[in-house]
């Protein structure tokens, strides 16, 4: 594989690989500043004890994480609708669908499994093996 590539440095896909990605200093710095901000805010909120209830805090932290993942994908992973002829994005969307099904499905089902357990008396709990 490698010897083949090195023997034909002007082979079609070699150029495409490198030229496709146009990484710029501005892009990386923008991504870094955004990511740093989106990291510092939730750490500050939790370590500073700003939240009193965990419900809205969880939602807010997850929202910031989702935004930061998008920032990483755009500025660091150079994702856009045109990269790799759109196949990149298609694979990502497919994966996200599977991830959402896995995560929400697992939590949903396992949460309800606890509800369906046999009621246990204190006496039974003491005699557990």
């Amino acid at each position, binding site marked *: 594989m*490698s010897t083949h*590539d*090195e023997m034909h*440095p002007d082979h*079609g*896909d*070699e*150029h*495409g*690989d*490198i030229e*496709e*990605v146009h*990484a*710029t*200093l501005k892009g*990386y*710095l923008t*991504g*870094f500043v955004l*990511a*740093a901000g989106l*990291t510092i805010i*939730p*750490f500050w909120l*939790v*370590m500073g004890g700003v*939240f009193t209830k*965990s419900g809205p*805090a*969880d939602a807010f*932290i*997850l929202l*910031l*994480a989702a935004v*930061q*993942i998008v920032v*990483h*994908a755009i500025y*660091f*992973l150079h994702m856009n609708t045109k990269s*790799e*002829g759109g*196949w*990149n994005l298609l*694979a*990502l969307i*497919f*994966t996200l669908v*599977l*991830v959402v099904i*896995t*995560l929400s*499905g*697992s*939590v949903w089902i*396992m*949460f309800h499994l606890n509800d369906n357990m046999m009621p246990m008396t204190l006496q039974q709990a003491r005699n557990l093996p």
Partner: protein
Amino acid sequence: MADTTLPLSSGGTTEPLQFHVAEEPHPPNGTLLGFWLYLMSDCLVFACLFAAYGVLGREYAGGPTGAQVLELPTVALNTTLLLLSSITYGFAVLEMQRNHQRPMMLWLTVTGLLGAGFVALELTEFAHLIEAGNGPQRSAFLSSFFTLVGTHGLHVTCGILWLIVLMVQVSHKGLIPANKRRLMCLSMFWHFLDVIWVGVFSFVYLMGVLP
């Protein structure tokens, strides 16, 4: 595709007709797309581990809770190291695009050191937990915690090994197209690990210490 067309002039041509494509018709950027597909499948591995943690993360079995054992200052430092290593890898890619080998190697070294610092801090954290009797066998929460965070740490370790191998290759053969392509693959891998870490510190650490 061009080989499948019939020649219009039949007289005197010695070239035999070809009804198949002589070369493998692969799309441009085949390697990077293939590597992206690997990253997506890796994403599914982490999704399963996140799901396991989501289900088991509050099952303490009478053991310590997340708020008791997770140290946020360490995690904040770890996050900083990983985010910094992401941007230094970005700088290395910029130097690679300009074909400046020496500064690129310098940035790659910085990236590797930051990654090594991350792994070292994480191992220290694990060692403290296990020393205090809060190893992965203590409760379902700690089992899923060690599995998820440990798998990420293992990925970072593999990334560092790959980085070292690539630096040796570049120092031997220079910035040839094949090496550039490999560096771009590792770039995707490294940034991908940072993306996973965003999920880890948000979902495991920050949400874990909340009441």
